[in-house]
């Protein structure tokens, strides 16, 4: 191409036009390729039937004090714990400590008794132990991640170990006294 565009008989005006044509054609090509690529990429996003599973209703009536259950929401484990008075007190006490990801216990729960959070360690996604009575609960009496040793307190806040943030709280609401809707 170079040998035709720079020959002496070609005026600057022609070269400019040719550059414009090349840019315009190239630009259209990019737009075309992008509009072909987008549906392909978007097809990898969650499909309609996956999105349809975005809420889960949970009956919390059978959960006794000091007991936890794990339910599945969007393919992830969600911890629902009916906390004891001691645990709530420990969580409130933790509000004043030096926290890596400072958050008040009151901001993490809608009702002091019920702690709802996504049970995936914020380090690299393992499920922390602490749901069963026999599980190790870490140095702060909450949850302990066995993969890389992160300790969470009774509010699910990171207290020790490599995890950067607290266990996240999913969107949820109390439908009535016995039922919560997650998602």
């Amino acid at each position, binding site marked *: 191409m170079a040998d*035709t565009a720079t*020959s002496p*008989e070609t005026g600057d005006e022609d070269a400019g036009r040719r550059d414009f044509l090349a840019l315009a054609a190239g630009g259209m090509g990019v737009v075309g390729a992008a509009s072909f690529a987008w*549906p392909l990429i978007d097809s990898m996003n969650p*499909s*309609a039937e996956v999105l349809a599973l975005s809420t889960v209703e949970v009956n919390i009536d059978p959960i006794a004090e000091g007991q936890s259950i794990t339910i599945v929401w969007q393919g992830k484990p969600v911890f629902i714990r009916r906390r004891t008075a001691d645990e709530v007190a420990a969580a409130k006490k933790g509000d004043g400590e030096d926290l890596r990801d400072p958050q008040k216990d009151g901001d993490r729960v809608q009702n002091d008794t019920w702690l709802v959070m996504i049970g995936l360690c914020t380090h690299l996604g393992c499920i922390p132990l602490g749901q069963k009575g026999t599980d190790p609960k870490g140095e702060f009496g909450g949850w302990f991640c066995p993969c890389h040793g992160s300790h969470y307190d009774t509010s699910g806040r990171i207290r020790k170990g490599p995890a950067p943030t607290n266990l996240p709280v999913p969107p949820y609401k109390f439908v009535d006294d016995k039922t919560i809707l997650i998602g």
Partner: protein
Amino acid sequence: MSTAPQWKNPVVRWVDERLPIFTYMDHEYNQFPMPRNLNYFWNFGALASIVLVVMIVTGIMLAMQYTPHVDHAFNSVERIMRDVNYGWLIRYIHMNGASMFFIVVFIHMFRGLYYGSYKAPRELLWMLGVVILLLMMATAFMGYVLPWGQMSYWGATVITNLFSAIPLVGEWIVTLLWGGFAVDNATLNRFFALHYLLPFVLVGVVGAHVVSLHITKSNNPDGIEMKGPQDSVPFHPYFTAKDSVGMGFFLIFFAFFVFFAPNYLGHPDNYIEANALVTPAHIVPEWYFLPFYAILRSITFDVLFIPAKLMGVILMFGSILILFILPWLDTARVRSAKYRPIYKYVFWVFLIDCIVLGWVGAQPAEGTALIIGQIGTFYYFIHFLVVMPVLGKIETPLPLPASIAEPVTGGGGGASAGAAAAKMEKS
């Protein structure tokens, strides 16, 4: 013109001295000499490669959503259509892309037949093309089985049963193909694996086809070799531009089917889930297999000691395999039909024969259609085995131009369209 370029960019130069991809691309797609007289029929090779890329890209996306299991395959395809983001678009592109691929490749092949592109020194180029066609057919057939509709299932049953016609080992081969005693889950699984594999084999053979093309260079409507720079123009910008124009029109044609008639080329029966206990009343393959299907069904009588079933299979495969030896069956020295006063008409008769066979393939195998199919099959082979060898001997070709440049420039450089292009190149 064909000197090695000096790369100004130091990174490009560094890479190029170690792995000459830039020099290669410049040589094969920038400076590469193309005959100056190519018409739009020379677009179809490039179009075929575009369709191949589109098929592979959309196919990979579909494979991410598809489940190759008899219990889930049909539903997973419906899920793609209803739930997956743009799944309907990707599937319709892939589905119609198969038809587009055959449309483009058939035109590409008939181009080769008309202009004698298969003749020396391009025999191997042509034979690689026939391998590509066979791979395409195998891939398309197995892909059609994957949605697990009624046509998928019964198409798979009928086509795999073709192999049972082979004497002695036929039944054993069919069981091996099925991985069972009927088309079932094992069959579906292996068809999916092979449907994913073969396109990449296809890419390899297309690569060989292109390398071979770049050794022999393109044939052209005059069917005479380029004799010097006056007969050629560089690939870029002349054919990048010409191929782009063709691509634009082709993509509009393609998009029309995808958006406005996505199921026109398919069969409604394939939206009924496969049922091993009910055969559809009228089994028809996809349109691109119809002429071959007609040949298969036209043999209703035993030929000497060969049973009708086996003879049908032999002729069906033979109708494609015969293309491998076409370069030697055609005895004419002149390539292009433009300079072959009789072949010019014989070509059209053959093309019409193929279209008639395609029509027959879509009809029930009885009555007039069957007889027309038998005549059409007979002529198909007569064309290759008798007409092509004999015609080359008895036909008196028209005088060939001295060079590619001569008919367009009138020998010296007249003011025709071709000459205008030549001037642009010089100025």
